[in-house]
């Protein structure tokens, strides 16, 4: 296969057209021999961030383990859209048990693989944010604490989308869901303490914790590959926009995910052994308004009765993330602008 020797950056983004990259740099998804862990024909919505994230994550895991992956799935969108009987999109061994027990089921799979002497077979457990931060939290914390050899991936779309967009502990403040409606003096979700699971995972001192978004799939793949190099409990938290639940255009999923990162609302970083070891810097910082205003779940903050006070509080959250993780490198930023 011939490749063009030029790099072309698409206007308005930092994404690089895959076909313009050398073979070695191309994503696994462009390879005809890709594992196709989740086959086409499933019933995810158009523009589903979770379907995209899961496909890249699992294919990367397959590549990293020479195809020796067993997947455990919590109940949720991913499970429902991939396996309406008698069809299945899974081309890897796949087990769904319940909503809240995926981490424990994965522990059992890993234990059985050890007993059976299948050292090369690895376990990936996956859940949405509800199955991770809410109903699956106890089992997840137990799996972390025991340091079981499981990579747990949370596809975070910030709510219970499968049941019709209800609030989870991962739903951000002010966001509209079916259980945090736009009524009353504080429309949308409350400003709580937030349940920051990547930080909670780091607090368990597990060997590897990382966040990623579907806006940077190479980064996601690299983190999965890194995770598969390590044994023990590993946690990957992937932001996956949900056009249905967020009220964003289905062709804007990547863009929305990118703005979540570039605004500072979703920090992208890696931590090993309980310490943050790398962060993905914000390349072109945007105000949170840019991210919020293209999602209908935040429509009540703009329009006829704007709520700049609420937007300011959300901006403060982004600023806190930027400070906490050092997401903006002032010097490098100004240098880049000067070039």
């Amino acid at each position: 296969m011939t490749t063009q020797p030029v790099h072309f950056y698409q206007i308005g983004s930092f994404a690089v057209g895959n076909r313009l990259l050398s073979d070695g740099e191309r994503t696994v998804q462009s390879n005809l021999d890709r594992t196709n862990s989740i086959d086409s024909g499933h019933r995810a919505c158009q523009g589903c961030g979770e379907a995209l994230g899961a496909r890249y994550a699992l294919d990367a895991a397959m590549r990293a383990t020479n195809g020796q992956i067993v997947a455990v799935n919590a109940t949720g969108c991913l499970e429902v859209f991939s396996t309406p009987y008698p069809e299945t999109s899974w081309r890897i061994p796949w087990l769904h048990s319940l909503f809240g027990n995926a981490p424990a089921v994965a522990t059992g799979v890993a234990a059985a693989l050890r007993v059976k002497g299948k050292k090369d077979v690895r376990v990936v457990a996956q859940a949405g944010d509800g199955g991770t931060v809410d109903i699956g939290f106890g089992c997840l914390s137990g799996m972390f604490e025991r340091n079981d050899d499981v990579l747990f991936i949370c596809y975070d779309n910030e709510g219970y989308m499968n049941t019709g967009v209800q609030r989870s502990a991962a739903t951000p403040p002010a966001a509209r869901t079916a259980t945090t409606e736009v009524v009353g003096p504080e429309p949308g979700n409350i400003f709580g303490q937030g349940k920051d699971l990547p930080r909670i995972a780091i607090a368990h001192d597990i060997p590897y914790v990382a966040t990623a978004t579907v806006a940077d799939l190479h980064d996601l793949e690299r983190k999965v590959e890194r995770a598969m190099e390590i044994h023990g409990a590993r946690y990957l938290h992937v932001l996956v926009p949900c056009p249905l639940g967020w009220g964003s255009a289905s062709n804007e999923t990547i863009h929305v995910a990118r703005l979540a990162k570039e605004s500072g609302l979703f920090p992208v970083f890696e931590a090993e052994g309980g310490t943050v070891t790398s962060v993905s810097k914000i390349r072109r910082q945007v105000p949170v308004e840019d991210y919020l205003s293209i999602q209908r779940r935040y429509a009540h903050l703009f329009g006829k009765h704007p709520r700049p006070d609420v937007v300011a509080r959300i901006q403060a959250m982004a600023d806190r993330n930027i400070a906490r993780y050092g997401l903006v490198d002032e010097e490098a930023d100004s240098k880049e602008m000067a070039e």
Partner: protein
Amino acid sequence: MLRQIEGSRAVAETVALCRPEVVCAYPISPQTHIIEAVGVMVKAGELAPCEFINVESEFAAMSVAIGASATGARAYTATSSQGLLFMMEAVHNAAGLGLPIVMTLANRAIGAPINIWNDHSDAMAVRDAGWIQLFAESNQEAADLHVQAFRLAEELSVPVMVCMDGFILTHAVEGVDILDQSFVDSFLPPYEPRQVLDTNDPVSIGAMVGPEAFEEVKYLAHLRQLDALVRIPAIAKEFADATGRDSGGLVRSYRTEDADILIVALGSVLGTIKDAVDIRREAGERVGVVGITSFRPFPAEAVREALCQARQVVVVEKAFSIGFGGVLSTDVAMAMQGVETNLRTVVAGLGGRSITRRSLEELIETAGRDELETLTFLDLDHGAVERERARMGETRRSGPSAENLLRDRGTAATAPVKEQA
């Protein structure tokens, strides 16, 4: 070799002989001694290769067992009471997925009021979950049933729960003959799963099933339980032929010949009932006992056959359906359809209340006089209940009934609630 050991120890040693590969443990009385003993053996390397997982809840315990079983490992856990309820969702799931997990249920009451002692409320709460439920009468049978349970579970791809009375059996020290490894190895072949998570032959287990096939999947589970009605006695016979021990099976009759009154029960209380029957037989009363070992699947035909000659059937059960009455009695009544008999329910032994031989003798005498009511609560303190009812009638803020009843019985030290004059 016959040894004087605790019931829990007997079960743990027998489970160890079954070569479990993944054991998950969460403590709850009165099953804890079982899982502790298995844990020691695993940690000492005696059961290698075997993984012992200390989980954070019973829900996780059953979930770990599900993952392990679906990966082809022989999985075991034990629980009781609240623990069983906490894992309830996974209990149904294990059966729905057709995973042959074996679990010991050390039967214990369900709160509130919290109570750690024995009754059968926990087992009854999961009777519709799709598990085979076998009740042990003695520690010997409890131990023996575990070997049969693994065999049955794996043959049929159905999980099996061995129910043994908490404390009464789990903590009782009595003579138990522990099987030897060579026999167990010959009786229980290695686990060959019907479905397994295998990277060389990927399958999806636990897919979503809609109305187009759900009923068929459930009906298949029912058929597997009906198959168990054939396999349970066959396996018990094979076991008896090899060991000389009558353990397991569907139902077991005692002195039922020419019986006028037959008492039906589950578990360890059968021993006391047999003693009472012996005494009443000596007094000339034609009374016998039918013990049900297999509660699920319910052996309706065997039960009908065992009971059909009796004029009166008295079901003594350690659980009841609040607002209705007997649970086991309902099943017995269904089994007795078309047979003319008087069915009586006696709820007894709730929350560990002793079922004494004396009370049972009186019960048999009352039944013999045809004076037993449809539903009786054995040794119930009606006076205490009436006094609490009166207090509740007198004042709105009558307080927690459990506390009040303890005070009424003089077992609570604090002053009684202020009574209205």
